[in-house]
């Protein structure tokens, strides 16, 4: 672990928050994509 000195809180918090936000948007997008894909396949099966 690199020596972060007195600003360790700053660096870790900004990295942590940013990664959390990134993981958040990725997760939301993936979940939404999967549920919509399932809905579409169900509709197409029923339709087809």
């Amino acid at each position, binding site marked *: 672990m*690199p020596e972060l000195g007195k*600003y360790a809180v700053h660096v870790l918090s900004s990295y942590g928050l940013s990664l959390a936000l990134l993981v958040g948007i990725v997760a939301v997008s993936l979940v939404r994509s999967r549920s919509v894909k399932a809905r579409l396949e169900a509709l197409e099966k029923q339709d087809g």
Partner: protein
Amino acid sequence: MSLWEYANPKKFMSFTAPILPVVTVAALVCLVSGLVWGFFFTPEDYRQGSTVKIFYIHVPSALMAINAWFMMLVASLIWLIRRHHVSALAAKAAAPVGIVMTLIALVTGAIWGQPMWGTWWAWDPRLTSFLILFLFYLGYVALWAAIDDPDTAADLTSVLCIVGSVFAVLSRYAVNFWNQGLHQGASLSMDAEENVADIFWYPALVAIAGFVLLFIALVLLRTRTEIRLRRIRALETRARRS
């Protein structure tokens, strides 16, 4: 096969299906390597100490926040002129990603500036302009949500995006005028790299590539979802009418 062929939703779906995983992997590789390299293997900056490491997230996200809006502007123009559904849906898909990028830029910018400014939020012109950009994004997403008919929604949001872009640029300079800069200046503007030594530079480029690729992957994923949603709506309408 001209570029406009890919504006056809079905072709777009088949074309992007193989691309999405590739872009996603590339994004992860660049992101991880860029951030790890920047976080672990760069010396401290003699003035700012370790906070300079925040640079590897703040600059890429700030760049993406602005370019996301620019991409939405281009997509809106394409929709208004060529009436290609995919570009309208791509703009709709990109907005939330733009919001996240703006939030990251705001958070990291505020934290990075705390030691210098002594407060967790300072009305620094560059940070404030991201706050304003955040408001523009909110308005854009809210307008999409408020309209049922997809075509009307695409038209109105495109008009808002075009008008909003002019005012965003205007606000950028108004904010500058309003509070003389506290910020470190364009720490990575392509031409003036005066205050960032080379060794900081390379990981930053990799991190930027990572953010750009991540943005593209997310937009492709979300656009495909939007296209599927439209297809569901179309199938349901047709079923109801037949």
